């Protein structure tokens, strides 16, 4: 909606400049033609807070639903791979994984605000942060040694100390034939009393099972970083004598069978978990999160703004970029097996843009286009703030695109961070996210959406 609105606003300003105030009487043919309809003098467009909250909920539905649909496609490609392993079916599964992450990355702006992704309980109500399916869907970092074979060293890090086995580490859920592979067992991971029991599920487990560890050119894990992701061969899914566990390491057929079975179950679990979010945001639902959120007024608006701030600064700048940069840790990046981190960064930042403008482009090319925070700011008279945040987002997106472009040109994020702490594209992107956060604070204070509910009297609670 922003483009249309900007157009209207520009017309309004012109009218103001020409007539010293819009009297609402000038029609399309100018002052000499027939009088046009009366306008809301000086206010180009009116949207309410509930409009903004509703559009935000609509985009949540659309982006989770897109992710769910593409996850079902991924599941189908994985079934094809396991049924007939070949380079072609293997690549098709990888492409499907990359595809589902495009809309999913844009949903992450719905995190950090005690929404369904972080707090959804099985009965459809919201609990506290940590109760939701986020851990099962997108748990990271991943202790991949628990799932499948790993190399003795990754990026030169052997992690060994006295008494450790010097060669490959082989014991894991896939190789442990006493571990019955089932959805329930994978979900539960046999850990009682555990608050994060789902580290065996989600996007990054599937990513690891499709790409394998990113071991660079010499496959030893100690060589120079290169431009490729993980090196898992499709023969890891071939049964019979062709079965491998890594390039050139033949393996018992049962291991490849179990690996395929695990991958299929992980895809099935992912589809199930995404569906719970689609249901929570279903606009036809009654009493579901969508209905409650739309009715939530300023509390919902505050959540939108909080999610935008936490994702942009705390998560994207503070964690996903700054830690990788600070530690120069090759694989301390979000999608470390597929080397898809550049897309994670872009799609996360795009999610913030979507929330601001109230616009989202669906995977079929159609759009959800409603009331944005920009419209609300203009409606309430904060035109300068509206434009400042628009400009800040533009700066962020163009700076982040340099990381994306470099990766597409052959230098993935894990190699870009090697350029040093002052690598201009990453440092510049972090700086843009910081500046964006400054202006977001102005947005919050202009719209005056403080949540004071914790400050209430304590008397009733005693």
């Amino acid at each position, binding site marked *: 909606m922003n483009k249309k609105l900007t157009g209207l606003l520009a017309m309004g300003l012109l009218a103001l400049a020409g007539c010293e105030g819009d009297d609402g009487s000038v029609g399309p043919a100018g002052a000499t033609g027939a009088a046009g309809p009366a306008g809301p003098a000086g206010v180009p467009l009116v949207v309410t807070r509930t409009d903004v909250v509703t559009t935000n909920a609509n985009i949540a539905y659309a982006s989770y639903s897109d992710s769910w649909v593409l996850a079902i496609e991924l599941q189908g490609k994985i079934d094809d791979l396991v049924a007939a392993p070949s380079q072609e079916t293997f690549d098709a599964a990888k492409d499907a994984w990359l595809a589902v992450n495009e809309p999913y990355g844009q949903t992450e702006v719905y995190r950090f605000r*005690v929404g369904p992704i972080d707090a959804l309980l099985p009965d459809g109500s919201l609990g*506290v*942060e*940590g109760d939701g399916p986020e851990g099962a869907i997108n*748990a*990271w970092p*991943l*202790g991949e*040694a*628990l799932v499948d074979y*790993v190399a003795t*060293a*990754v990026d*030169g890090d*052997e*992690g060994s100390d006295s008494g*450790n*086995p010097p*060669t*490959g*580490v082989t*014991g*894991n*859920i896939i190789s*442990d034939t*006493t571990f019955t592979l089932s959805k329930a067992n994978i979900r539960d991971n046999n*850990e*009682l*009393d*555990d*608050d*994060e029991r789902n*580290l065996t599920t989600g996007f990054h487990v599937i990513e690891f099972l499709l790409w394998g*560890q*990113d071991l660079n050119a010499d496959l030893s894990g100690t060589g120079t970083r290169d431009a490729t992701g993980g090196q898992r061969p499709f023969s890891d899914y071939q049964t019979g004598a062709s079965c491998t566990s890594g390039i050139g390491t033949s393996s018992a057929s049962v291991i490849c069978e179990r690996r395929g079975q695990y991958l299929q179950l992980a895809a099935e679990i992912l589809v199930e978990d995404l569906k719970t979010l689609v249901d929570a945001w279903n606009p036809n639902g009654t009493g579901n999160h969508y209905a409650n959120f739309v009715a939530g007024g300023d509390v919902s608006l505050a959540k939108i703004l*909080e999610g935008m701030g936490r994702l942009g600064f*705390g998560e994207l700048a*503070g*964690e996903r970029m*700054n*830690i990788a940069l*600070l*530690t120069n*840790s*090759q694989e*301390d990046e979000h999608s*470390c*097996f597929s080397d898809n981190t550049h897309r994670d960064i872009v799609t996360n930042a795009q999610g913030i843009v979507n929330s601001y403008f109230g616009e989202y482009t669906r995977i079929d090319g159609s759009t959800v286009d409603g009331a944005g925070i920009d419209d609300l700011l203009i409606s309430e008279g904060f035109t300068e703030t509206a434009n400042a945040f628009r400009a800040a987002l533009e700066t962020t997106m163009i700076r982040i695109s340099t990381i994306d472009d470099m990766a597409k040109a052959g230098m993935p994020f894990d190699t870009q961070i090697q350029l040093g702490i002052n690598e201009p594209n990453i440092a510049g992107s972090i700086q843009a996210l*910081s500046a964006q956060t*400054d202006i977001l604070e102005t947005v*919050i204070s202009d719209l005056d959406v*403080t*949540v004071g509910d*914790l*400050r*209430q*009297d*304590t*008397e009733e609670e*005693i």
Partner: protein
Amino acid sequence: MIRLAATVLIGSTLLIGSCSQRDATGPLPAPGGAWTLAWGATSHTLVQPTPTMDRETELRFWTGFAMFRDPWVKAPSSTTARDGLGPLFSARSCQSCHAGAGRGDSLLNDPDTPAMAFKLADVDDIHSRFGDQLQTRAIYDVTGVGKRLSGFYPGEPRPSVKVETLELDDTDIVLNRVHASVPDIPAYAISPRVAPGLVGLGLLEAIPQSRLEALEDPDDANSDGITGRVHWVGEGEARAAGRFGWKAPHPTVAAQTADAFRNDIGITSVYNPVETCAPQQQRCHDQRSGNGPQGDHEIGGILFDTAVEFTASLAVPEARRATAKVRRGQRVFEDLACAACHTPSHDIVVAGEQTTIWPYTDLLLHDMGPLLADGIAQGDATGGEWRTPPLWSLGLQQQLNPETGFLHDGRAATIQEAVLWHGGEAATAAARFKSLSKAEQDALAAFVLAL
């Protein structure tokens, strides 16, 4: 000085009413002084940076938050900066016990909560068999080439929990407490400790050591029955006042953070380079470490520093509304001389700026009597001594996590219960509390929860 004043003021409400800091209409003082957090657009977490922080520092704050929030994983993993979990551990992340930087669940509400550390007494040969803390979980056992995987490496046993009920004379409040027991370990040797809230730790670290020494009164020279003493830690140059932990064994936020990384998550650092495996736990010793390529520790220097900075700079939120009931509770607080240990305020200097903070603690060790004693000596602290915990933000911590409880093991569901558990040096105050009307007792609780 405040301690003395409070003693003199016992029973003298008129005099109290005239004191300048007890303006009956104004708000309660800002707990964190100039670093107090105003109410913002969030209501579900205490993870908020101090408001004066510049963006560059705040970036490090959020980087530290990632180390606080994200689960550690088993080594080796591709995310080399975040591996090294266990082999023995109690939780995978800081966040899983200190949710939203607040308090963990009480065993009474949630017997399986991960947010409980089970400390062990050094009796019989318990320390050589288990170390000084029970580790209730362990990583998947990977024993290497040619060896069969045998499932999850058995952690140390998780204690079963038994509730004991105490009925007191002169009050209808029923007190519950938990006993944790494990086969082979006598119940008296196990002390459950709940994960405390984390706000304002950097401000407590900034209280001058001379101030703590001035508050000491080990020989009860003023005959008020209170004998607080500094928990001195370290020798010679390194000798410093302990401030953090339930018995104040750690003088700095860094030392406390390193202790939690090692004892709760199994992550080694420059402070604590050795894993928690007890001498005879050979399979534990055989597991791979998550040390970095340069022989760095499992949490390396830069990331450890950001985690410490994060922990030290969690902002203290404003106090809640000072209603008439809260003001009445404040008078009760003063009447009972609670401030003799829960010292209301301290002057500190942070980042070159002077301010007054209101944590309501003297950070000193006090004998709290047999009902609270856990029998576990820690450093110089005896089995009956506890460090006065700060009271700021307790009400918020309870509101954020209704499953939590007060006191070191979360046994008290209400402030009223917590006061009644006080014994030893606080026995007089607790006895006087018992003689108050219910309205006065409730007012005291309202005051404490408003801080």
